């Protein structure tokens, strides 16, 4: 195949066209493989990184000759008849496409297998496509380097044989084994770093605090617990001021609080109340003209959205008294909330513009709670038997990451968090205190 694309066959112009065509083919199929692999499993956190790291180290040991592990591949070659049947650029495109698939041709080392396993375990579809694109690009770069400036068939053959010589004596496998050791070590470091990472406590005074809501700059609204009573506070431009209610939620230059009888919207700069809504409910959240909150009615629990311009009311979700509907958050046009029934716990997203609802994450042996949203980023607390995690999910590619893990048995628990412009904050509390942290 290399000898087909070398410039000595069809000249430099055709060589460049063929290299580009080959690269496009390899990138396209490799990215497609990555897309599929990334979609196979949910995007993993620390445990997925741990599994990927172990996979890399296992195959590193195999590459170094310490153990024997399977290396699935078809060991086929790209069909020679293509170059006889099609024009050279098309042949190069097809060759690139075939080689970009990876496992259908001969693989001298196990790196691709490790990368594919890692993509399936750790990455989402787009991340997987990006990672495997590197493999496709690598195949094109190798072709470019080995065919560049070749003047004769002998030279082309010599380069191919020279490349093949790298494999003699196991040098290539040893080098690859060491590379996989480094990769595995990095993945394990990331895995353990992900579970043991420290979060930075935000200094909001000596009293217990909870329920952060981040705004632009240093703006943060939160609840302060003093003497068993909850008071809303607002920190802006280095100054802390009291809010006329609790459970605050910041939206640009405004913040909404629950006063008990009403929801009040306050201007962050002046502290003046700009709107009062006599609505029975709790945990208000604000975005543009929409106010969302949760309430208990005779038939059960509801999450409600109110258009502040028209006062139109929309019931976003409802359930029986046994259903736990978590505090909602809104970032136009999406409302996010947690819903836990007897059989399942889930994070749901409702679109105010289309009325469309979808389930972002669900589990029956875990709890999803305290959902927050900003634009395309969702953050929530996920609790399993082993530990509690503060997690973010990017709605653009469905990729997720564990931002903080609170191990079981520590006596500390995670509570409500916030996300704003890729900044995150969450509450961690124990029997004696409660504080707000940024991961």
């Amino acid at each position, binding site marked *: 195949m290399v000898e087909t694309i070398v410039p000595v066959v069809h000249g430099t112009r055709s060589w460049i066209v063929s290299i580009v065509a080959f690269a496009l083919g390899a990138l396209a199929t490799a990215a497609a493989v990555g897309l599929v692999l990334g979609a196979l499993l949910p995007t993993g956190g620390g445990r997925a990184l741990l599994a990927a790291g172990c996979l890399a180290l296992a195959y590193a040991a195999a590459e170094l000759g310490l153990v024997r592990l399977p290396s699935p591949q078809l060991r086929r070659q790209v069909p020679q008849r293509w170059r006889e049947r099609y024009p050279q650029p098309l042949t190069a495109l097809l060759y690139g496409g075939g080689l970009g698939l990876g496992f259908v041709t001969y693989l001298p080392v196990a790196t691709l297998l490790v990368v594919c396993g890692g993509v399936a375990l750790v990455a989402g579809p787009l991340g997987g496509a990006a990672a495997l694109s590197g493999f496709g690009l690598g195949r094109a770069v190798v072709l470019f380097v080995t065919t560049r400036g070749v003047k004769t068939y002998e030279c082309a053959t010599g380069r191919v044989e020279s490349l093949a010589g790298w494999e003699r004596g196991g040098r290539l496998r040893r080098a690859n084994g060491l590379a996989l050791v480094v990769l595995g070590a990095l993945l394990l470091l990331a895995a353990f770093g992900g579970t043991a990472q420290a979060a930075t406590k935000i200094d909001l005074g000596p009293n*217990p605090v*909870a*329920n952060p809501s981040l705004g632009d700059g240093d703006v943060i609204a939160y*609840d302060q*617990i003093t003497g*068993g009573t*909850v008071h809303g506070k607002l920190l802006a431009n280095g100054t802390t001021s009291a809010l006329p209610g*609790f*459970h605050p939620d910041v939206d640009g230059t405004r913040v909404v609080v629950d006063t008990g009888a009403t929801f009040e919207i306050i201007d962050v700069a002046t502290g003046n109340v700009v709107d009062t809504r006599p609505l029975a409910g709790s945990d208000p959240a604000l975005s543009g003209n929409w106010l969302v909150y949760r309430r208990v009615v005779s038939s059960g629990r509801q999450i409600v959205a109110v258009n502040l311009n028209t006062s139109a009311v929309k019931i976003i979700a409802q359930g029986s*008294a*046994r259903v*736990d509907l*978590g505090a909602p958050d809104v970032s136009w046009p999406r409302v996010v909330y*947690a819903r*836990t*029934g*007897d*059989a*399942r*716990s889930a994070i749901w997203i409702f679109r105010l513009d289309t009325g469309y609802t979808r389930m972002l994450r669900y*589990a*029956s*042996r*875990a*709890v999803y*709670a*305290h959902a927050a949203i900003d634009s395309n980023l969702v953050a929530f607390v996920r*609790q*399993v*038997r082993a530990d509690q995690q503060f997690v973010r999910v990017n709605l653009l590619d469905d990729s997720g990451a564990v931002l903080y893990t609170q191990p079981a048995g520590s006596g500390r*628990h995670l*509570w409500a968090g916030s996300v704003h412009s890729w900044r995150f904050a969450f*509450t961690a*509390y124990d029997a004696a205190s*409660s504080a707000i942290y940024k991961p």
Partner: protein
Amino acid sequence: MWPDGEGLARRLASGHTRKGFLGRLGATLVGLAGGGVAASALDPEAAEAYHFCGHIYTTGSCPNPLGLPRIDANGYPLRPADGRRIDNLGRLIDTEGWPITAAGDRLLGPTGEPVPKAPRTRICQDWVPEIYHFPTQIDGGWYRCCGGTIRKLVDCCAAHDRRINGDAALTGYCYAGRKVFCVMYYQTTVRC
């Protein structure tokens, strides 16, 4: 001579028969015989344990929140130590499913609101299919004396050749060709 059914109840509680049919029949008879009769009829010594009390064979526990697969009459998880209801995270819960303290008060977060609920699903019928991706059902059961009351040991069965241990599943204890995948137990209040 034992009263009608009492001898069978005694054999079920002290013997080794654990065919699903006999287990079901035994459960009925033990219930009919009543606590007093069973108390006089059953072996008063606790059964020896290989795995957990009453289970001397090697099939592993069904996956569960707290390590030991104690269930209620409907297959939902209970706390092994005292039989109080727990959710899928292993937390004590009230009858509505809200997490509670040991004293029975609602578990509260830092601002005084209840801690979020967790799902509560059946160990054999829900947990196992979700984790292992094949259908299961409760077929067999047998009885032992544990902690002074009769314990029903319950087989979670599947049409699957391997058991939860990873090796060959035991045959002959479930219906319709199913085999024992994992085991659970239900502690009755019938004294023994």
